């Protein structure tokens, strides 16, 4: 019974655990519930992936109603892969949350914090797994509303403004997505993605469908902080509590990018429709802007978390670059970068959280000499930083290599140059932290800092280890990414 209902359980487990946390708010119970739910969700994702690899696309009818009438859950390799990434990051972060939340959140709000965390997880999973366009919107809003709250719980009053900004931008984005879905529904009468795909592809060039595509593109771009629409992201990630920053940085934008894959390639049929619009060219320009402008801005940040947030915007550029190229290799590079960036950025945020836990400061100078006081933390940080650069043997190298190969295949050697050039900028900002941490004399709180408690340190180390593991043994991640990319290019769902 559990196997047959896996797709539903994937979302329902965190969704049920969330209200439980709100009812049993006292003591450590919310954390235990969260831990159990997030690990169960990870187990579900693993089992689902096995099923997808064995049986191909898994379809599950909620309420037992057949597809266009009821809501369908439809899981192919791409979904299952994103589910694994999201639940994996969640499962690693929850053990970290215990100490981190105790130090950052007031006692009477902790239970609610976990409620919000679980709702955010459930929302992201719901968006990823569903095969119904309107259901995407509903679960997107669950994850968005809960992330506004998570951010607002941040360190100082600027968190409130960041959260408000995000709320406005996020709601506009979600409303754009609803408009797009509404136009598609008006023209086809259906909301099921597979059903939509078969109907939309016969309406090539219809103004309403093009307009729907435009609204979906802008809406999703707002949600994933594509370059000129990214202004909410640095503030939000910089002021959120450490747990929330790491979780959101690792998962939220990835799910939005998944929506791009789903709509551009599965629904609109990439080759036939999207490539005839100016979207690929637009994405190419914006991706390059993100890779260079956002990375350059990151270099000049004093706040470490804000620097990492800008770096996220830059890294999203790599993923959208793959989408704009549109070949199977490029898409595989993008998909594998979803995983890689989730590992790297969640890990970096967790490790910064460890340092902040000890030095109580967010500025780069506050970390002076910390490399000598917290060698494990800073060592892992440096490893992840090298991965961001794309040093061979780390995950960062794998995705950049794939994107480079894809660009070279298309004969666009200048792009390969750009990709390498952007690594240089990454080196500037990551190098700055590493330089301060190892070559400055410790001062202030950093002088007496010791390694963070194991509960905080281990999750960061695990992610750093994962970045090495998936950098050396690429058969798992690349195998899945190639499979998913092939399905996308073929437009199969």
């Amino acid at each position, binding site marked *: *019974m559990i196997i047959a209902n896996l797709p*539903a359980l994937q979302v329902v487990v965190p969704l049920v655990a969330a*209200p439980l946390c*709100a009812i049993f708010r006292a003591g450590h119970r919310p954390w235990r519930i969260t831990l159990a739910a997030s690990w169960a969700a990870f187990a579900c994702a693993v089992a689902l992936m096995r099923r997808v690899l064995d049986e191909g696309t898994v379809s599950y009818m909620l*309420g037992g109603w057949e597809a266009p009438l009821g809501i369908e859950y439809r899981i192919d390799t791409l979904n299952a892969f994103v589910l694994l990434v999201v639940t994996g990051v969640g499962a690693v972060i929850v053990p970290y949350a215990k100490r981190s939340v105790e130090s950052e959140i007031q006692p009477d709000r902790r239970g609610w914090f976990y409620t919000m965390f679980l709702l955010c997880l459930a929302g992201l999973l719901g968006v990823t797994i569903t095969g119904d366009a309107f259901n995407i919107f509903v679960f997107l809003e669950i994850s968005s509303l809960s992330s506004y709250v998570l951010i607002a719980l941040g360190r100082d009053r600027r968190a409130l403004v960041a959260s408000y900004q995000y709320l406005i931008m996020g709601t506009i984005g979600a409303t754009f997505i609803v408009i797009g879905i509404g136009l598609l529904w*008006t023209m*086809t*009468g259906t909301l099921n993605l597979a059903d939509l795909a078969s109907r939309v592809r016969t309406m090539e060039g219809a103004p309403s469908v093009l307009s729907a595509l435009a609204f979906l593109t802008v809406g999703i771009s707002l949600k994933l902080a594509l370059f000129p629409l990214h202004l909410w992201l640095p503030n939000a990630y910089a002021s959120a509590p450490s747990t929330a920053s790491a979780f959101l940085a690792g998962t939220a934008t990835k799910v939005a990018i998944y929506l791009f894959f789903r709509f551009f390639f599965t629904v609109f049929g990439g080759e036939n429709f999207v490539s005839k619009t100016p979207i690929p060219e637009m994405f190419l320009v914006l991706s390059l802007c993100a890779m260079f402008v956002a990375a350059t801005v990151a270099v000049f940040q004093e706040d470490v978390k804000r620097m990492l947030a800008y770096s996220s915007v830059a890294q999203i550029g790599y993923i959208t670059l793959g989408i704009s190229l549109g070949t199977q290799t490029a898409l595989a590079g993008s998909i594998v970068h979803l995983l890689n960036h989730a590992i790297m950025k969640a890990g970096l945020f967790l490790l910064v959280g460890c340092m902040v836990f000890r030095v109580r400061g967010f500025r780069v100078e506050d970390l002076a000499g910390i490399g000598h006081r917290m060698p494990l933390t800073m060592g892992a940080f440096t490893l992840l930083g090298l991965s961001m650069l794309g040093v061979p043997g780390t995950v960062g190298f794998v995705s950049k290599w794939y994107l480079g190969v894809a660009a070279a295949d298309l004969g666009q050697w200048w792009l390969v140059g750009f990709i390498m050039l952007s690594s240089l900028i990454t080196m500037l900002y990551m190098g700055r932290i590493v330089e301060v941490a190892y070559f400055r004399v410790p001062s202030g709180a950093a002088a007496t800092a010791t390694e963070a408690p194991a509960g905080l340190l281990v999750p960061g180390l695990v992610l750093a280890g994962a970045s090495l593991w998936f950098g050396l043994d690429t058969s798992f991640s690349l195998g899945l990414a190639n499979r998913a990319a092939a399905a996308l290019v073929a437009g199969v769902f």
Partner: protein
Amino acid sequence: MTGVTSESIVLFVNTALLLLMCAAALGVVRLRNLFAVVMLGGVYSFLMASLMVALDAVDVGMTETAVGAGISVVLMLSVLGLTKTREAAPRHRPLVALVVSAVVAVSLLYASGDLPPFGDPAAPAHQHVAPEYLARAPVETGAPNIVTAVLASYRGYDTLGETAVILTGGIGVLVLLLGARRRRGGVRQGGAGESPEGTGAPMLRDTVILRVGAKILLPFILLFALYVQFHGDFGPGGGFQAGVAAATGVVLYALVFGVASAQRVAPVRVVLVMVPLGVLIYAGTGLAGMLAGGNYLDYSVLAHDPVHGQHWGIFAVESGVFVTVSGTMLAIFYAFAGRRQAREEEGAGR
């Protein structure tokens, strides 16, 4: 009535309401007195609700009245009481806003040339999926109100998500507004900190007429909520509308008799449990379907006869929606009202 006159009446009402809404929206944008903006916003919502009824969306119209013209206005007003009521003169040049708006307008107008004309029965949206709902829902679920059938059963999972959205919003407001001022009494979770003084003052001016009027109205409001809840299968209504109506009753009571009196009727502790409990009821119904051997949220397996099962399932999930919605609306109201009292006490303490 012949087809022609019916069509012209529909078009006339539709057009009139649309133009009024445009006027109200323009007023909202231009006015700088925020009280006026909020009231005009209520008018706008009410016009929208009337238009929804004219468009045959009776359930939606009912919800929009309760939410847009009811709860939203109350929330906005209580926030205005906490902040200020006049908007500063805009200092931005409207260039960015104009460009953004123009791009959106152009791309939608571009699409609208392609959309089917208003009221056209041959539009593609009426050919696929919807006819099946109309044909099958009464037979398969036993509910003549198709909206309820689709909402609670065919697309019941969306509604579970919707309930979770309410839970998220409600708890979000609680996280932000309750317990942040640690030194204050006022409304606290658990009801432990309910201070006897200060919370008793009603928010509206204390008059006999209001009290008597509210007392007469209250039972009818609650009765109406129950009617809307249990009649939702057959007429417009359902858990959401009923939840809002029930909460409105208590809010009225709180406005006239003071938040403390309302909290004796609906204690904070109970309300805080209601918010998550409804989602649990809804999700639990889904799990029950799974345990009985069906898919998640499959109600047909809940009883020997599928239609009976559907009936019970719809009843259970609508109750879940009711519990969460009424609890959340009250919790949000308490949170804002408690903030106001904390502020007043602080002012008095200085």
